[in-house]
Structures are given as structure tokens and as C-alpha cells.
């Protein structure tokens, strides 16, 4: 009996000594000395759940010319762009390419007097960047450091690819060694949903953008909510941005419910707005050499880590805007629009996602996505004539672009507005006051500004600088 008690006491002693051994080991080797410096700019924001840049490159419109004076325009350009990418990849697989600058007249001759097909991006993109997305293994034309907003193929030169930047009025021809039947292939991918099109010069007397005649649409108003309004999304975004330092960043909540996370004295800030928008800014840029495709993927990866991009509301994201600046530190601004019913959506602040990459590191992000509600198809009805939209709103366009409040001379405003249009295509405008997606003509100006006009009435809905 006594020995049984002694054995039980021994077991208790062993357990106590074991626990104290573990405790002493923890005290001696616990990581209590870590500081709270940056865990790399962007924290753990990089996400493998991000869409690829190549997948987000889409055409806003396609043009097909018969070569005998008639041109069709289609906003349903995915099939034509897929064929265009195949043709580009085929050309880039060759061993030889030569670049040349051509005149506007030479370009229009090739497009109008010969069967031709072109695809437009709706914004200027670096050509070598676009080609690196389409044919990453080819090194042809990688030194072609030019901005283009459309790529074209013409039977006038089956061994060539043409490109244009309507913003600067520049035109290019890239000559390869072997001809291809590109026009036939792209033409066969052209769908039935197209309209006769004329240039603004043909319809208004000035301007190079193609405008459709007699377009119809079934788009109708649709309610929407904020895509990222939940507290969990905001907290996840903050954890992703700040990484290990999240537990120690300053968090300020104002009386409206907007939350600011601030590291240091503003070196790195994350803003979570009560209405659902998320904004990130850092004053520290990267030091890597510039590369369009890599910066684009970095932008998407960061955005995916900072709130996610795989929800239903973020599917069919598309690259819709681009600008670049800086010499010593190259800065690129990417804009991405959500798509609803095949058309891009823009809000008062512009597209849903904009990301700035400087020196290879993300230095800015704003996401304000929408979550579309139930859609009730409208009747198929005639859209407002784009030519009339430009003509009737030329004063408005002029005043916004010029920053003027005085009424300009009508001819001056008209000429200026018509020349400033880079593209005009259907989309949705997210009206913040009515919480409605309103069908709209989205007019993009050559400086990156966007105007939204009611698709059926042609009246101004808003604009984004």
C-alpha cells in the first residue's frame, strides 16, 4: 500500500519536472527579441490566386474593312482578338522583323483601300509589353518602345502588322519575312453583331475614331452594391499589406466608419472606406528595372492579395487603361474594369481597380468594385448616335478637358472634342447616388480622361479625370 503511494508520488514528480523542463526551455529559446520592421514592401500581399496579365488583355472593339469603302465595327471583339493573337504569335515565331514609322495617309490607305481587320484596346499600351504577353518566348520587336492602341492586318501587306497610337497620331508598320493570311482568319472570326462605321472625320468633319451607325442594345439599368464592403475583406487586406507588422500598425477609425491603417509616419497607409473602397499608398518605390509584363503581374498579384480577385464580382476583369512616367524610376499605372454582361463597368472614380507600380514594387492601389444585383433584360432598342453624343456634348467635353468654366466658341469646342476622342464604346456607369448601373457610351479621351453618356439618351452621366 505504502509502496503504491510512493510510486504514484513519483509519477506526479515526473510530470511536474517534465512541465518545468518544457517551461525553462521555452523561456530560454522563445523568440521574444524580434523587431517590427518591414517584412518587405507589400508584406504578404503577393498572391498565387491572381489572374494573369495575358488573360486580362482584351480588345474593346474590332473593325473590318471590305477594301471598297465600307467598314464594320463590332464591340464583341473577343473572337477577333483571339485570332489576332494567333496571327501575331505566328509572325513573332519568324526570324526577322523590321519596324518603320508610316504616315497617317499610308496607314489609312492600307486600312481602307484593301481588305483589313484591326482590333483596338481603348487605351495606349506599350507594344513590346503587349507582344511579350502574347508571345513571351519571342524576342522580335522587343526594342520597339512605342505606345499603340490598335493593331491591324491588311491585304495591302500580308507580311506586315500595322499599329497606331491615336493619342499621339503615330502609325507603324512591322514587316516580317513570311506573309500570312491574317485578314481572312480575322475576318472569319468577325461575328454578326456589327454595325456600319465611319470615322469622326466622315461624320463630323474632324477626328479619326471610328463611330458606329445605327447601333442597338438590350442593356438596361441594374442595381449594385459594394463588392468589398465587408469588415473581413478589409482586415484581410490589412494583414496582407502589413504582414508581420499588422499587430503593431496604427489603426484610426473616424466617425463615418472609414478606417486608416498607418505604418510609421505615413510611409505605408491603407484606407478602408465605409462605402467599400480600399486604397493603399506607400512613399517607398522599388529599385528593379522596368518590365511591362512583370509589373502587370505584380499589380495583379498585389491586388489579389489585398482583398482577393476570385469572387464572382471580380471575374472577367479587363485591362482598360494604362499610363507610364518617370525616367530614373519607371512608374506604370494600370487600370482594370469589371465586366458585366460583356461590357466594362466604370464608376465616378473610374474603373474598379487601379494599381501603380514604381521600380517593380506596388506603390499605390485603389479598388472600388461593384457587386451587380439582379438583371432584367430590356427591349432591344436603338442607342443614341455616337456622332451626336460627341457633337451635342462637345462644350461639356471641352470644358472638362480644358478645365474651363467659360462657354467656348462652338467650333473650337467641337473640333477639340472630336479630335480628343480615343475610343467610344458601350459600357455601364455605376451611378453612386442611385446605386444603379446605367448603360452608357464610355468616351475615352487621349489624355486618359473618361466621359459617360446615357447609351440611349446621349446625356452626360459623369466623368473621371
Amino acid at each position, binding site marked *: 500500500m505504502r*509502496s503504491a503511494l510512493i*510510486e504514484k508520488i*513519483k*509519477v506526479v*514528480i*515526473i510530470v511536474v*519536472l*517534465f512541465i*518545468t*523542463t518544457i517551461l*525553462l*526551455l521555452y*523561456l*530560454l529559446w522563445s523568440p*521574444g*527579441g*524580434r*523587431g*517590427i*520592421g518591414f517584412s518587405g514592401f507589400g508584406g504578404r500581399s503577393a498572391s498565387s490566386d491572381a489572374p494573369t496579365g495575358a488573360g486580362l488583355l482584351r480588345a474593346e472593339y474590332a473593325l473590318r474593312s471590305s477594301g471598297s469603302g465600307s467598314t464594320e465595327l463590332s464591340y464583341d471583339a473577343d473572337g477577333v482578338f483571339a485570332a489576332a493573337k494567333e496571327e501575331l504569335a505566328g509572325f513573332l515565331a519568324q526570324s526577322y522583323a523590321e519596324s518603320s514609322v508610316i504616315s497617317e495617309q499610308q496607314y489609312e490607305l492600307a486600312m481602307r483601300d484593301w481588305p483589313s481587320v484591326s482590333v483596338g484596346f481603348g487605351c495606349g499600351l506599350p507594344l513590346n509589353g503587349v507582344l511579350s504577353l502574347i508571345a513571351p518566348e519571342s524576342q522580335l520587336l522587343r526594342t520597339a518602345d512605342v505606345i499603340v492602341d490598335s493593331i491591324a492586318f491588311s491585304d495591302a501587306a500580308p507580311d506586315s502588322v500595322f499599329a497606331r497610337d491615336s493619342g499621339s497620331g503615330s502609325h507603324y508598320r512591322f514587316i516580317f519575312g513570311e506573309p500570312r493570311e491574317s485578314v481572312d482568319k480575322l475576318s472569319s472570326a468577325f461575328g454578326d453583331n456589327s454595325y456600319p462605321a465611319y470615322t469622326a472625320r466622315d461624320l463630323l468633319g474632324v477626328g479619326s475614331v471610328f463611330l458606329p451607325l445605327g447601333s442597338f442594345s438590350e442593356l438596361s439599368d441594374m442595381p449594385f452594391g459594394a463588392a468589398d464592403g465587408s469588415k473581413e475583406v478589409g482586415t484581410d487586406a490589412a494583414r496582407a499589406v502589413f504582414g508581420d507588422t499588422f*499587430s*503593431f*500598425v*496604427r*489603426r*484610426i*477609425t*473616424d*466617425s463615418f466608419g472609414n478606417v*486608416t491603417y498607418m505604418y*510609421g*509616419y505615413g510611409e505605408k497607409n491603407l484606407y478602408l472606406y465605409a462605402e467599400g473602397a480600399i486604397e493603399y499608398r506607400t512613399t517607398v518605390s522599388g529599385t528593379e528595372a522596368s518590365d511591362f509584363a512583370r509589373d502587370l503581374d505584380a499589380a495583379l498579384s498585389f491586388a489579389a492579395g489585398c482583398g482577393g480577385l476570385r469572387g464572382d464580382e471580380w471575374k472577367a476583369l479587363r485591362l482598360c487603361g494604362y499610363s507610364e512616367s518617370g525616367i530614373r524610376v519607371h512608374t506604370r499605372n494600370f487600370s482594370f474594369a469589371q465586366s458585366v454582361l460583356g461590357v466594362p463597368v466604370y464608376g465616378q472614380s473610374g474603373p474598379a481597380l487601379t494599381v501603380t507600380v514604381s521600380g517593380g514594387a506596388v506603390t499605390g492601389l485603389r479598388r472600388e468594385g461593384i457587386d451587380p444585383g439582379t438583371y432584367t433584360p430590356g427591349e432591344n432598342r436603338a442607342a443614341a448616335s455616337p456622332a451626336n453624343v460627341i457633337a451635342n456634348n462637345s462644350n461639356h467635353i471641352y470644358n472638362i478637358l480644358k478645365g474651363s468654366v467659360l462657354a467656348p466658341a462652338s467650333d473650337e469646342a467641337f473640333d477639340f472634342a472630336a479630335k480628343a476622342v480615343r475610343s467610344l464604346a458601350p459600357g455601364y456607369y455605376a451611378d453612386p447616388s442611385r446605386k444603379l448601373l446605367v448603360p452608357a457610351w464610355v468616351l475615352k479621351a487621349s489624355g486618359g480622361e473618361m466621359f459617360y453618356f446615357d447609351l440611349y439618351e446621349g446625356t452626360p452621366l459623369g466623368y473621371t479625370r
Partner: protein
Amino acid sequence: MDYSKAKNIIIALLLVANLALGSVYMNRLSAEREAREAAAASTRLYLQELGVELSAPIPADEPPMPVLYVSIEKDAGPQSFDGCDVVLSGMDEAYSAVPQRKGPGKAPIIGAGRALQRLMSWLEPEVLKSLEVTGIDRIFWVDRREISAEAAEDTAVPAWRVQTNRGVFYIEAYEN
């Protein structure tokens, strides 16, 4: 197998391990205490060389601390958390930072000596010659001097409050 003998051996081994680990730990604590005392002595000497009078003890403790999430409220009176005052700067004196909850992790802080050295590096030599440090303590500090937006909630960070004959100074305590 003789389980009783095995238990005796295990007890003996664990006792030896505990004694060894305990000894190492006590030596470490002793070394850390000596280092803190040396740092405090070094700081006193440094202040003396600058001509700064020190009439308060330099606290030796510098435990890792979390941030403190606070709400900004009017007429709530002085606040404290875990034995440290919660101080709000940059707003009307009627407002206080009321503790809500502490942050999820703790991080090391600089000691009082280093905080004093930082403060001395900010001040002009003429000021130092007539400076007298009358108190130094650990606090949670909300600095709203550079923040213009209205705040319902904010975050207090660990800081050292240094009271002198020329005013009160605050030095953030996190190491970064």
C-alpha cells in the same frame, strides 16, 4: 522491467536538467539586470556630461508591449491600462483615449536610457545646459498632432514620457 528503478532514473535526469536549465536562466536574468544597470549608469554619465540634471530614477524594466486600441471620448477623465497611463496629445484636453483592448502581439521596446538619449539628440545644446529631468515613465501614447481627421477610434503605442523643467516630451518606444 523494474519500473520503480526507471522512474527513479527519470526523476534524477529531469532534476539535473531542471537544475542546469534553471542555472542558465538565472545567469541570463542576472546578466540582463547587470546590463540594464550598466546602461542606466551610462545614461546618467551621458546626461551629466551634457549638463542635464537628473532628479528621477531611470526605470529598469522594458518588457515587450502591445499596442492599445482606444476610443476617443469627451470628459472621460484620465485613463490607464496595465499600470501605464494612456495619454492623448494633439486634441482638446477634454478628450481622452479610453482603452478598448490591447493588440494581438507584443514587441520589444527601447529602454528608458535609450529614450533619454534620443530626446537629448533632439534638443539644442543651450536647452540641455539648463534641463532637469524630473520623471520618466512608460505610457501608452496617442499622437494626434499631425492627424486632421476626426477620430472615433485610434491606436496608442508604447512610449516613454519624460517630464522636465522645460515641458513634457514623448518618445515612441518600439524598436524600428
